[in-house]
């Protein structure tokens, strides 16, 4: 009996396939519309998901409060001594100096981000050492110099596959050598892709920044809920210093993507599209030819459920194909074309990070979400009207 049922379903599936083929123009146009909806939805889903992943990575490594000295609206070096002035503010765990700058490689015409840190001074959790693909960061107490930990773009740009030393030019064009002691893993690429981390003293030497000055001061607080209060006190203590807090940066990211509203409107759009397909299918539902076909099938011994099964399989095949095509296209679009269709929407991001490399995780949950928004409405839209076939009497195939 089970074998018979399986054989029967296979037969019905075969009939559904041949029926799709017979109406290939209609099938193809539904497939295209449907595939496009899924493509848009999946692209957007993948982009926002990959971006929010990256934003999270960035934020994890962002100090709770960053201080920069401003002069005439531009950033300039900040004296280390400013850190001492903060000693009186309650709740500050540690102030860590940082030299953050950009190094332009005139040979390769590339920009590298250089970050000089007192790695050993940084509090637990703020260090970048969890994200190394190989090598290690200096442990606390290790104040070695002349080392560098680099991102994979740097490895490529400097062609460091076979060796672990390289040199950069000081402003006076003398060479400063470095030994690579680690490489960042690729899953933090948004942050580390073009990054060279080195000892604070080496960065000072490389950029020729006078002793006693750094580019910014990172403030770590004891209790994250006090960030705003502490930031306010710092502003009062150090007028003329820009105080950036992590929540502020977080907000900036959210504003830049606007992804919540974007995702919402895409969902709405796809629901609308499903509805249009539904309406169209309803309108073009039971043509005289279809009624005739149903009556003939019924009189030849097909049950109403068999005819419904044909419609069901047709819909499953169309939506399955649409999903496959739409999702594959979306993945290619996002990964290999850097979501170029969404560039206008993501403008903010590409300004932040010009050579953005997105690698979305394909989580089952996200795929299910997309299916729920597309396939289910479509199945409902096509199979439910097919119930009308139950109202076609078999004897209408007989001569009057």
């Amino acid at each position, binding site marked *: 009996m089970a*074998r*018979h*049922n*399986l*054989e*029967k379903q296979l*037969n*019905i599936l*075969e*009939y559904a396939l*041949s029926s799709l083929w*017979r109406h290939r123009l209609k099938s193809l146009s539904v497939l295209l519309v449907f595939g496009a909806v899924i493509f848009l939805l999946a692209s957007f889903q993948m982009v926002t998901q990959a971006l929010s992943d990256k934003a999270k990575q960035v934020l994890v490594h962002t100090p709770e409060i960053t201080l920069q000295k401003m002069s005439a609206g531009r950033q300039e070096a900040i004296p280390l001594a400013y850190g001492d002035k903060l000693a009186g503010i309650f709740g500050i765990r540690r102030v860590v100096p940082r030299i953050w700058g950009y190094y332009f490689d005139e040979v390769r015409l590339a920009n590298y981000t250089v970050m000089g840190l007192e790695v050993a001074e940084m509090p637990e959790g703020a260090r970048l050492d969890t994200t190394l693909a190989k090598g290690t960061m200096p442990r606390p107490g290790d104040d070695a110099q002349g080392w560098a930990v680099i991102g994979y773009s740097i490895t490529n740009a400097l062609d460091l596959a076979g060796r672990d030393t390289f040199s950069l030019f000081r402003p006076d064009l003398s060479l400063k050598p470095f030994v690579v002691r680690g490489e960042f893993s690729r899953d933090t690429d948004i942050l580390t892709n073009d990054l060279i981390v080195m000892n604070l003293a080496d960065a000072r030497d490389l950029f020729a920044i006078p002793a006693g000055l750094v580019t910014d001061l990172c403030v770590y607080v004891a209790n994250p809920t006090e960030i705003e209060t502490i930031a306010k006190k710092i502003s009062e203590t150090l007028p003329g210093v820009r105080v950036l807090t992590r929540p502020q940066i977080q907000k900036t990211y959210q504003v830049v993507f606007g992804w919540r509203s974007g995702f919402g409107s895409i969902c709405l759009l796809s629901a609308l599209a499903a509805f249009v397909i539904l309406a169209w299918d309803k309108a073009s539902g039971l043509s005289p030819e279809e009624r*005739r*076909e149903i009556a*003939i*099938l*019924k*009189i*030849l*011994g*097909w*049950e109403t459920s*068999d005819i419904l099964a044909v419609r069901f399989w047709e819909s499953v095949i169309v939506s399955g194909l649409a999903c496959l095509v739409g999702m594959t296209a979306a993945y290619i679009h996002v990964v290999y074309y850097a979501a170029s269709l969404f560039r206008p929407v993501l403008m903010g991001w590409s300004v932040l990070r010009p050579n953005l490399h997105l690698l979305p995780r394909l989580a089952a949950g996200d795929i299910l979400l997309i299916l729920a928004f597309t396939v289910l409405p479509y199945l409902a839209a096509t199979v439910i009207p097919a119930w009308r076939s139950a109202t076609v*009497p*078999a*004897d209408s*195939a*007989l*001569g*009057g």
Partner: protein
Amino acid sequence: MLIELSQVSKIYNQGRANEVRALTGIDLTVEQGSMVCLKGPSGSGKSTLLAIIGCIFPPTSGKAAIAERQLARLPDRFLTLHRRETIGFIFQRFNILPELTVLENITLPLLPLGVAPKERRQRAHELLERFGISHRALFPAGQISGGELQRVAIARALINNQPIILADEPTAHLDTTLSREFMAIMLQLKAAGKTIVIASHDPLVFEHPAIDRTVTIQDGRIHVP
């Protein structure tokens, strides 16, 4: 008796404004291997009677036993199951789906029975060969001649080896040559043991020597002259 009707009535849309009394008090028996013609003017109830014999719907009242099964109060689903084992239909204008191939049309009744593709093809080819239209198997049914179409329709009625063949005005749209050919094939089928009921008011049919009995229907009743 393969077909046994007693006091069968059929009322369409019973209890509603558009109620139609189509059949009244029909007594009819047909034994296996015989060929019966239902004759009568248009609207007399021939198709309705064929629909009851063909297990499409049960009679409103009276008893109908088709191949040993009482139809009264049989749920729709079982009517269908019984129909596809028992009845082969040949329709006026043949009701072939023009976009499907000849092979697909013939094997349509086998799909819900769960017959595997290979066996379907084999059974169809036997019939196609028997009717001399093997070369048309993969043609869309819309593209073959009227004579071939007629044979496709007959082949479809035989595909599940059903014991009863019902034909509703099969010659209404055929020329004399094709009508004669049709009756010749019916004669063959009768000789092979099929029970055949044809509704027709075409003299080529009801005066054909192969017809064992002609039953005249008038206003939903059997007319006894």
